[in-house]
């Protein structure tokens, strides 16, 4: 699936729920499918700042594509991380850097997340794009 097809699939899933508690249940469930980061990558270097909860994010580069693994000590955060990774993981650095991440607004998440949570989500997106940018620069050199 392309990045946008994946985003559209999430938007469609969310449209099935009218109640925010149900949406949260769904987010928590998604967190359980999060590709887990290996313990050795759970270092301070891989911690994302701007979250009240802790998030570790690790990027692997294989066959020209970036694969993300992550974890968090908070389950809602884990669910949010999981959605972002579902959308962006397994794509080329260029696709990730150029991606227009619209699903967060489309499902109304930004308005419902607490400001700290929302800041955390934005710093994670930023970090993911930075990783991709770094890998893109690296691949252009080699």
């Amino acid at each position, binding site marked *: 699936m392309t990045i946008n097809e994946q985003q559209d699939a999430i938007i469609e899933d969310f449209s099935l729920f009218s109640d925010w508690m149900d949406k949260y249940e769904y987010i928590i469930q998604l967190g359980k499918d999060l590709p887990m980061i290996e313990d050795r990558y759970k270092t301070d270097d891989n911690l994302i700042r701007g979250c009240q909860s802790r998030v570790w994010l690790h990027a692997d580069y294989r066959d020209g594509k970036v694969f993300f693994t992550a974890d968090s*000590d908070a389950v809602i*955060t884990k669910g949010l991380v999981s959605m972002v990774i579902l959308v962006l993981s397994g794509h080329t650095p260029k696709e990730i850097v150029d991606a227009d991440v619209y699903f967060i607004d489309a499902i109304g998440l930004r308005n419902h997340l*607490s400001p700290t949570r929302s800041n955390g989500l934005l710093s994670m997106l930023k970090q993911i794009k930075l990783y991709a940018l770094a890998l893109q620069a690296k691949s252009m050199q080699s």
Partner: protein
Amino acid sequence: MLSAEPITNKHKLDLEKVRQDFPILHRTVYGHPLVYLDNAATTQKPWAVIKAIEEYYTGINSNVHRGVHYLSQLATEAYEGARKKVADYIGARHAHEIIFTRGTTEGINLVAASFGKQFVRQGDSILISGLEHHSNIVPWQMLCEERKATLRIIPVDENGEWSLDGLDDLLRGVKLVAVSWVSNALGTVNPVETVIAAAHRQGIPVLLDAAQAVQHMEVDVQGMDVDFIAFSGHKIYGPTGIGILYGKEEWLNKMPPTQGGGEMIRTVTFGKTTYNDLPYKFEAGTPDMAGAIGLGAAMDYLNSLGLPSVFEAESYLTTYAFKALQTVEDLRFVGNARNRAGVFSFLVGDIHPFDLGEILDKQGIAVRTGHHCAQPIMDRYCIPGTVRASLAFYNTPGEIDRLVTGIRKGVTMLQS
């Protein structure tokens, strides 16, 4: 406060009626009636305060102290009247011992800067406690760094209470004690009288961070013989942006101003400026007139309800909440002080406080999560933070029940 004393109803507040005084309590959040349990962060405002501010701007707004015109006279009377109300509320001897600030933080910083400049030298010490809010840590760290002085800490035990065994030794060489009366993170009501007495035996003045105390208990600065107290208007049902520093006249007179400008001067020439008397030498610039008048209105409002009734309602609710929260499986309180204000910090199982706070929010229940600007005490318990529910007299047992139901719902959703 939570105590073993039986609950009596002789000062019973009519909660339904009282809640009508607070417009915001009647709004909904995500389709649920609001349950506001974040009162330690800020309290809601009664109509009396909102209207006082409106009347100030619509009826008498003008600059205080210097105008010859009628409105300036009215504004000055209202502003100075508010100062007198605050003085009466805390039992100060003189109105000029009341300095208007922006809040607790500014009051503490003022003392750190002014008292520090005058009295703290290399090798001296400042004594705080392990239970402090960052605003009663950082100003002293900054002062100690600048003066090459030492910051000493009263240790805290597992229950979240001060360990005062070595207090007399800790006090040696200390220039000022600055401690919280009630802990914002755990709700512990600290035995400040003991510390004041011990400090005074060695001739050391004491500042109390009363941000979490003045709204929950009777304050009598003369009876306590405390030298300074700082608190915020917005935590005692008044407006944001206004706070109080009380200082004994004899100390304030010895302390230099920390900000220069209008209001604080008597005469200015390019050669020499002489400073105004108390309290004005500490109030440079045009003050927050509306804020001060709003704070005075908050105190009038509390007095009209009757402070014993307000405190008794809180005491009843605190006991009720303590018992209700104990029924939640796997809930553990962080801090188990024997003497506690209506502040409950807790964790449930291994659920992250941030997750629980968010699920409570979606049910219309406002609590605080995180370290509550008191990282050292969170480190003491090796936790990143807690969920904190903090009560005010306008909260109801029904709201506590909704909190408990909300926590249970959160646990069902979040437990892995």
